[in-house]
C-alpha cells in the first residue's frame, strides 16, 4: 500500500500543481505584505477587519451628547470637575512666552481641567514655534499633574496694518480700528475653541508679569458671570514706582452716556484719552493696597487682561463686538453686552495683578536722556576732581607749610600748657580733621551740589508730565 501511486498523478500534473501552489503562495505573501505596508489601502476597506488594520485598531465615535445644564459654572468648580477654557490671543509675543509659561506651570487649578487655546495672528517672529515647543514640553512632562486638557493652536492672519509697538498701539486715532481688529481676533479664537463641556472661559494676556497662582479659584469663588481683577503695572522709580494699567474696567457715568448720544453710529469711545472725557469711576484708580481683596464693584466696561467668565455668557451670544456696540468695541463692548443680557459684571478693586512694564518711546528717550545726564554728571565730577587734584598739587607747598606751621604751633602749645594736655589735644585734632577736607573738596563742592539739585528740579516736572502721558500708553 505504501507504494501505491494514484493513477492520475503523472509528473505533468504534479508539476502543474506545484506551479499552482507556488503562485498561490506568492499571491498570499504579496497580499500580506501589502496589507501590512498599506493598512488603509482601498481594496481592503471592504475587508476592514480588526487584525489587519493593526495600525489603527480603533472605532470611531461620531455622536456626542451634552447636557448644557451640567456646565453652568459654580463657586467651587474644581470640586465639581468644571472645565475652563483658557484663551490667549497672541501677536509677536515671543519675548513674553517664557514668562507666560512659568505662570502656566504654577496654576493651582487642576491642569487637566484647563483647556488651552491660542490664536497666533500676523506674527513675524517665532511665536508659533516657541509656543508649540513649550506646549509639547508640558504635555510630555513626567509629572502627570502638569498635563493640560485639550490644547489648540489656531493660526489666522487678519492682515492688520496697525503696528503693534507701544506708540502706535496707543495712539488715539488708531484706537477704534485697532480695537475692532482685536475684537475680531478674540471672537475667532473663542468660536473655534469653545466646546459644549466648558463651564468657564478665562481670558489672559500673555504679558502679565505677576499674578497669584490661585487666581482662577480666587475669581471663581465670587460666582459671578463676568469678573476681572484690578490690573496695575510696576514703573521705574523716576515714574513713581507703580501705576494703574488697565483703564477699560469702569462704571458707566452720565457724562459718558450723554457723550455717547452725540457720537455717530460707528464711533467708539475709548478710555484714557483727553478727547473723550467720560468722568467714569475706574476700577484701577479705586485700589487700596491694604483693602479687602474680596471687595466687589459693579462695572459696565471690562478690560481684557484677565477676564473670568462663565461659559454660558458666551454660549448665549455675548462676544467682543468688532463693531461699535453702544459706542464701544472689544472688551468694553463685551462688558456692555453682558450687562445688556442681564449678566453680572464685577471687578475686584483691591485684588491686583501686575502687567509688565514696557517703556514707551518717550520713556526710552527720557531714560536715554537720564543716562546721558548721568554720564555728563560723572564726567563733570571727574573733571572737578581732577581740577581739585591739580590745585592741590599746585598749592601743595602751602598745604605742607600749613601743616608744618600747625605742628610747630602744636609743639609750642604743648610746651606751654603741659597741665591741660588731656583736654586740648583732642579739641585740636577735631579742628584739624575738619579743616583739611573742607579745603581739599572746597573747589568741587558747590558745583557738585548744583548738579545734584538741578537733576531733581529738572526731573520733577518731567516725571509729572510722563505720568500724565502714561495714561496713553496703557492698555486702552
Amino acid at each position, binding site marked *: 500500500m505504501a507504494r501505491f501511486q494514484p493513477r492520475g498523478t503523472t509528473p505533468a500534473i504534479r508539476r502543474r500543481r506545484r506551479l499552482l501552489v507556488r503562485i498561490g503562495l506568492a499571491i498570499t505573501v504579496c497580499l500580506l505584505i501589502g496589507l501590512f505596508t498599506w493598512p488603509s489601502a482601498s481594496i481592503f476597506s471592504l475587508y476592514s477587519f*480588526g487584525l489587519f488594520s493593526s495600525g*489603527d485598531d*480603533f472605532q470611531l465615535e461620531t*455622536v456626542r451628547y451634552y447636557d448644557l445644564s451640567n456646565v453652568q459654572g459654580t463657586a467651587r468648580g474644581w470640586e465639581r470637575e468644571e472645565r475652563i477654557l483658557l484663551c490667549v490671543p497672541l501677536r509677536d509675543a515671543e519675548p513674553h512666552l517664557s514668562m507666560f509659561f512659568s505662570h502656566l506651570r504654577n496654576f493651582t487649578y487642576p491642569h487637566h481641567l484647563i483647556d488651552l487655546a491660542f490664536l497666533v495672528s500676523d506674527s513675524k517672529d517665532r511665536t508659533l514655534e516657541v509656543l*508649540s515647543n513649550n506646549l509639547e514640553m508640558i504635555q510630555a512632562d513626567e509629572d502627570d499633574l502638569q498635563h493640560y486638557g485639550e490644547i489648540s493652536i489656531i493660526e489666522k492672519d487678519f492682515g492688520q496694518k496697525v503696528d503693534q509697538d507701544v506708540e502706535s498701539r496707543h495712539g488715539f486715532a488708531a484706537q477704534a480700528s485697532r480695537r475692532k481688529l482685536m475684537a475680531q481676533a478674540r471672537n475667532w479664537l473663542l468660536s473655534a475653541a469653545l466646546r459644549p463641556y466648558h463651564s468657564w472661559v478665562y481670558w489672559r494676556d500673555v504679558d502679565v508679569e505677576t499674578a497669584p497662582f490661585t487666581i482662577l479659584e480666587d475669581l471663581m469663588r465670587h460666582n459671578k458671570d463676568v469678573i476681572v481683577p484690578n490690573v496695575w503695572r510696576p514703573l521705574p522709580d523716576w515714574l513713581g514706582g507703580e501705576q494703574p494699567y488697565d483703564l477699560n474696567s469702569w462704571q458707566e457715568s452720565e457724562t459718558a452716556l450723554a457723550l455717547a448720544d452725540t457720537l455717530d453710529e460707528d464711533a467708539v469711545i475709548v478710555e484714557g484719552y483727553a478727547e473723550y472725557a467720560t468722568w467714569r469711576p475706574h476700577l484701577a484708580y479705586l485700589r487700596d493696597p491694604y483693602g479687602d481683596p474680596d471687595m466687589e464693584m459693579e462695572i459696565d466696561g471690562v478690560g481684557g487682561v484677565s477676564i473670568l467668565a462663565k461659559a454660558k455668557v458666551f454660549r448665549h451670544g455675548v462676544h467682543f463686538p468688532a463693531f461699535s456696540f453702544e459706542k464701544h468695541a472689544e472688551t468694553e463692548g463685551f462688558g456692555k453686552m453682558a450687562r445688556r443680557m442681564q449678566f453680572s459684571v464685577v471687578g475686584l478693586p483691591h485684588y491686583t495683578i501686575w502687567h509688565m512694564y514696557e517703556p514707551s518711546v518717550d520713556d526710552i528717550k527720557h531714560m536715554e536722556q537720564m543716562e546721558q545726564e548721568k554720564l555728563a554728571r560723572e564726567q563733570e565730577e571727574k573733571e572737578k576732581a581732577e581740577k581739585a587734584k591739580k590745585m592741590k598739587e599746585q598749592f601743595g607747598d602751602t598745604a605742607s607749610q600749613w601743616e608744618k606751621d600747625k605742628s610747630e604751633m602744636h609743639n609750642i602749645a604743648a610746651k606751654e600748657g603741659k597741665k591741660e594736655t588731656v583736654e586740648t589735644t583732642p579739641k585740636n585734632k577735631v579742628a584739624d580733621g575738619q579743616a583739611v577736607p573742607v579745603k581739599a573738596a572746597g573747589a568741587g563742592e558747590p558745583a557738585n551740589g548744583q548738579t545734584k539739585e538741578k537733576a531733581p528740579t529738572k526731573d520733577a516736572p518731567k516725571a509729572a508730565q510722563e505720568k500724565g502721558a502714561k495714561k496713553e500708553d496703557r492698555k486702552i
Partner: protein
Amino acid sequence: MARPMGPVRLKKTSTLTLALGACLCIFILCFLISSATPDFSASRKATAASHPLSPPTSPFRKSSSPGGKSKPPPVAHYNLNNVTITSNPIEHGENILILTPMARFYQGYWDNLLKLSYPHELITLGFILPKNKEGNAATTELQKQIARTQKSGPEKDRFKSIIILRQDFDPPLPSQDEGERHKMQNQKARRSAMAKARNSLLFTTLGPSTSWVLWLDADIIESPPTLIQDLALHDKPLIAANCFQRYFNTEKKKMDERPYDFNNWQDSPTAQELASKMGPDDILLEGYADMATYRALMAYMPTIDGGTDIHQEVPLDGVGGTALLVKADVHRDGAMFPAFPFYHLIETEGFAKMAKRLGWQASGLPNYKVYHYNE
C-alpha cells in the same frame, strides 16, 4: 488497525491543502478578532480626532483601553487661513455644519436630511433640544434615527459627526403649539429664548474646520437634495431660501402652497419710523396685522413675477432661520442671534442686522423653495 496510518496521511496532505488551511485560519482569526459592528472607511478614520477632547465637528477614536492610563491630549494645530469658503464646496472638500434647534422631531425632516446629495462625510449635524417632556421625547426619537443611520446605515448615508445638546434654560412657553407660539405678546420671550438656543448651539459646535453653517429648522420636511450646493453657488455671506408650506386648498380642492416664513424682508421707511418711536427694549415684528411695517417680504416675491428663475437673488435686511446658509467667517467675526432688542430686532432678524454692522450683506432666493411641515 495495527498498520501505521501516519505516513499515509502525511503523504496525502499536499502543500496546496496546507496553504488553503492557513488562509482559512487567518480568515477565521480575522473574524474572531474584528468586532462585530461595521466601522468606517480609512479616509474617514484619517480625519478623526485622537482624543475625546477635540472639536465636536470631527468624530474621535474610542479609547481601546478604558481602564488604562490615558495619554494627555496632543497639541493640536489648526490653520484657519487654509479653511476655504468657495462657491464650489464639494470640489474643495469644505465642511458644512447643519444646525437645528429642535422642539419636536419630524420623520420628514430626517428623511429629507438623508436625501441631501452633499457628501455626508463632510456634513456635521448639531441639534439643541429643550429639557422638558416634549424635548425628551424628541431626543429619544432623534437618537433612534441617528443610531440607525450612523451604526447600521450604508456608509454614504452616515454623517461625519453629530452633536446633541440639551438646553440649559427652560423654554419660556409651556407649549409649542402653532397658535400659542405665534401670539404676538409671546414673541419677544419666545424668540429671545430661541436666540439663546441658537447661539449656544452655534458657539459650542462651530470649531476650527467649518466652512459653512446651514441653519435648518426642524420642521423643514422638503427641500431640493442639492440645497447646500445651490445656496453655496451664490457665494453670499448669508443666503436664505424661501420657506413655503403645502396645504390642502379647500377652494381649489387640491394641494397648494402658501408662504410661511415672514422674517426674510427688505426694510421700509415705515418700519424705520416705527422703530424710531419705540423704546429701547421694544421690538418690531413681522406678519402681525396690528404692526404694519410695509416691508417687502421675500415670502410674497415669487407670486409677483411668476417665480421661475430659482437663482434670482434679492438683497435682504432681515432673515429667517428656516433654511439659511451662512459663511462660517460671519459667525466667527461675532455675528450672532441677539437675544435682546438690537436695533429693535431680535433673533434671526437681529442677526442679519449685526452681520451688516460687521460688513456682511444678507441675500435671499425668492424662487428657491423649501417646505415647512403642516400641523
